[in-house]
């Protein structure tokens, strides 16, 4: 690990100034960053501890939504009665991820910014266009069974590993950001970037931008929402496919729906085509399957990850059936 300086920031402005200067990173839970520093993938010369900035809170917004501080620990967010009753999909997604120990350390901001678990990205002895632009991507012809089928490029087929972000995507979350120039809001839908020819750029955030909070809009249909995760062991593993869904069915007809897929792309994949296909349709396994197929028509799987299409289809159908009370 490279040697680094350390400071605990007492004010956000101070933290932003230090990290915006470059060769520096924010430290919150550290569950991903410290691991990447040990591997040599992350090499900051300065760590700025932001855990004393008072960013650990869950509060109600005047419009009925929620504001979640970026420093809120994953375990506290999942335990929040407001989240559990109004946005169960979010509590379920968080609880589906990592372990009790990691959720106690990991924060909301860090969860959004965690890096891919693609083995080539984590292995300095291998080329990787995300870690070292221009060096190539061995994953397409190598180990890719859990890599992307949507939105990938010749340069990168990494997936975003977060469960929480998949739920936030379905809930139309808005990210509150503070920079030297001031504050701004970024809808989650505009936050992540697809890899294209610059897979090293993962979000629209410039160096030094600090995520301070995540806002959830009031969304009554989210009271009837769920997260379903498919993985290779029963617990404590990254998804091979996941589904976040909220559904409003009246008299057997889908009045409104939110649907997002995880572990398929470099970002949580909001399934807007499937949503459009479902609104106004009779809730049925066939309609759910057709909607998933419409979204997944854009998939460009590789030999060892084509199975994800049937995994995500089955997970989507099951989740939507559960929420609508329809027998699959």
């Amino acid at each position: 690990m490279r040697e680094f300086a350390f400071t605990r920031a007492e004010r956000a402005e101070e933290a932003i100034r230090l990290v915006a200067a470059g060769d520096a990173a924010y430290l919150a839970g550290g569950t991903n960053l410290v691991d990447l520093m040990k591997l040599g993938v992350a090499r900051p010369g300065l760590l700025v501890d932001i855990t004393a900035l008072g960013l650990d809170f869950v509060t109600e917004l005047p419009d009925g939504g929620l504001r979640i501080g970026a420093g809120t620990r994953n375990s506290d967010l999942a335990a929040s009665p407001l989240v559990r009753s109004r946005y169960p999909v979010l509590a379920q997604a968080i609880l589906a991820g990592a372990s009790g120990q990691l959720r106690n350390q990991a924060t909301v901001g860090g969860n959004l910014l965690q890096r891919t678990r693609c083995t080539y990205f984590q292995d300095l002895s291998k080329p990787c266009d995300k870690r070292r632009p221009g060096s190539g991507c061995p994953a397409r012809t190598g180990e890719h069974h859990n890599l992307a089928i949507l939105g990938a490029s010749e340069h990168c087929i990494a997936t975003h590993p977060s469960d929480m972000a998949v739920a936030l995507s379905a809930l139309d979350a808005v990210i509150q950001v503070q920079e030297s120039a001031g504050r701004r809001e970024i809808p989650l839908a505009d936050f992540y970037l697809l890899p294209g020819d610059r897979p090293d750029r993962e979000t629209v955030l410039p160096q030094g931008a600090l995520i301070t909070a995540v806002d959830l809009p009031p969304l009554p249909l989210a009271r009837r929402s769920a997260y379903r995760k498919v993985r290779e062991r029963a617990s404590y593993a990254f998804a091979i496919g996941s589904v976040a869904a909220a559904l409003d069915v009246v008299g057997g007809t889908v009045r409104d729906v939110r649907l997002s897929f995880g572990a398929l792309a470099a970002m949580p994949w909001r399934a807007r085509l499937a949503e459009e296909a479902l609104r106004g349709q009779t809730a049925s396994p066939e309609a759910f399957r057709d909607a998933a197929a419409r979204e997944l028509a854009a998939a460009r799987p590789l030999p060892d990850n084509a199975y994800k299409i049937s995994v995500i289809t089955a997970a989507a159908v099951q989740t939507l059936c559960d929420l609508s009370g329809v027998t699959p």
Partner: protein
Amino acid sequence: MSDASTSSGVELRVNGTRHRLSLDHRTTLLDALREHLDLTGTKKGCDRGQCGACTVLLDGRRVNACLVLAVAAAGKQITTIEGLGTSGDLHPMQEAFVARDALQCGYCTPGQICSAVAMLDEVQRGWPSAVTADITDETIRLDDIEIRERMSGNLCRCGAYVNIVSAITEASR
């Protein structure tokens, strides 16, 4: 970069005792405990947050000490397996692990026990898990399925899971 800026004087509060250490910032809490304070009950397994052998309590919550930088743990209350009980005065969770033969090689045991103690506290506070049927329910019924899910961050290569679940059940009563 000068040496001074890459190390700091750090006060760690471990098992009720304050220790003043000079630490390279790269030192994890796990290495500080084992290599600087000779508290070798906390074990190094994967050193990547994947096995749970290094589980300690930080301000009462279970965490992976291998992913916590010691300098970032300054001022917090740290409890290790040595702080839970002693050979003459075992913690009820330690007694249950002995009584139920919940180990073979024992390497994962300190992490299992620290994790289990904090896990019962989480249940007491009504925290749900991924297998809790009704996520809005604030009273958790701790059956084997709940224990297995909540303890999934602690791996046991000997496969002593059956007796680990049994010991935790006993200690929870």
